[in-house]
């Protein structure tokens, strides 16, 4: 059997003196190249004084946003808590007098949260959103447990025009006015399924 993989090593003429000179040159060249970096600018971003740019969609501290009417977007559906891989979200749904569903309590334990953004992806009402704020340091671990009042912000976050209850066909109070079935955006009036008219 012929060994096909074996090839004779390439013959190379070696000159000890030339090799040594080559080695010395190589070392000196390395040092010269490093020395050149004396005059290059450092890449360091001096963090506390100099804030790095964080993109608007950066995954940082989690907030609960409001719809354009200033009402809470969260309907307490629990999808975020189900999606959370580290189980750091806890909440309870209630229905208020106006017919809105909302979170009775909403708690995120940021000492567990890995800022993966799955909750934001799971949220059907754009309520839960991640913000470009990463400065979550605390001296006391317990201070990293955020309750609903800590999480709720005044603004609309990334989706300024979206309002779940204006879209959905649920009978509900919006700004004190009753929105009946069929009054939602792009919603047709309900059909009387027992009627005979076309």
């Amino acid at each position, binding site marked *: 059997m012929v060994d096909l993989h074996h090839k004779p090593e390439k013959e190379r003429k070696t000159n000890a003196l030339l090799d040594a000179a080559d080695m010395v040159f190589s070392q000196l060249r390395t*040092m010269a190249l*490093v020395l050149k*970096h004396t005059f290059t600018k450092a890449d360091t971003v001096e963090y506390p004084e100099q804030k790095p740019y964080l993109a608007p969609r950066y995954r940082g501290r989690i907030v609960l946003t409001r719809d354009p009417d200033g009402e809470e977007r969260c309907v307490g559906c629990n999808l975020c808590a189900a999606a959370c891989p580290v189980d750091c979200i806890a909440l309870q749904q209630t229905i208020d007098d106006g017919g809105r569903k909302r979170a009775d309590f909403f708690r995120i334990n940021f000492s567990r949260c890995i800022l993966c953004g799955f909750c934001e992806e799971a949220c059907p009402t754009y309520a839960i959103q991640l913000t470009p704020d990463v400065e979550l340091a605390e001296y006391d671990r317990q201070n990293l447990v955020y309750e609903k009042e800590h999480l709720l912000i005044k603004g609309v976050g990334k989706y300024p025009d979206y309002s779940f209850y204006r879209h959905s066909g649920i009978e509900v109070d919006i700004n004190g006015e009753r929105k009946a079935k069929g009054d939602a955006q792009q919603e047709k009036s309900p059909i009387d399924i027992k009627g005979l008219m076309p």
Partner: protein
Amino acid sequence: MVETLFKLLEMTVIIGLLIPIAAMLVWVERRMIGIWQDRLGPNRVGPFGILQSFADLLKILGKEDWIPPFSERLVFTLAPVIGAVCVLMSFAVIPFSPTIGVSDLNIGLLFFLAMASLAVYSVVLAGWASNSKYALLGGMRAAAQTVSYEVFMGLSVMGVVLLSGSFNLREIVLAQENGWFIQSQFLGFVIFLIAGIAESHRLPFDLPEAETELTAGFHTEYSGLKFALFFLGEYLGVTLISAMSVVLFFGGWMMPEPLDSWLPPLMWFIFKILFFVLFFILLRTSLPRPRFDQLLSFGWKYMLPLALFNLLVTGALKLGGVYG
């Protein structure tokens, strides 16, 4: 009596300055490496981070001074002391300026070589007493490396001795009045510097403590103040080799005609030392560590013959009357 007191004061001042300088070198090194790697280095404690070393010192003093129960207690404690003391002793023969210098020993150069040899004990004993595999490997490497490199370190400076006709370091400096020995002893200087790097086990010859393979080598088991002593010894060693290079090959405190009146001799000496210290740091940033067998064969196969060749040529030229 007054003279003795004055001498004691001089010694105290020199030691009292050397140790903070060695501590400052840690900062200088980290800062320079940072610059050469396009970083900033420690710049938080004090202006430009200058107090970083003192912060480090405070931290290291606060650490538990732990002696592993499996170690040889006495030797374990003694080893770092030997290292620091040997290096500090070597500074006794260094002439800092025409007037400053602890001792005008007529065998100053031999004393330096002897102290450099004794310093090996520190590393070897540390490696042995630690009773741990990494420390032992580091100690063994240190022994082999230092013994090999010492041979041609001694030979490389013999050219200087031939030219100046003296082992006294002050006289060696004075003999360079008409031209530094770097001109006639360039090869000797290169060999001495390489041996010096190996003696102070700095990168690229830091095999005794090679982090990537031996954790921390001979000082793996050390912590707290004893570790600090090793550190101090290393940085004093860098200063010592730099000082010796300056004394032997770069005219010590002397400078050529127009420059010498600009600054006092001591300042020139310090600037020259600083130059070499920076060179040591540059070596650390730029060159990778050789394998151990490469290190030894490089020493015995290239450096030793070169040192002998240098000595031979210098001797022949001296006999031929080239140097007068």
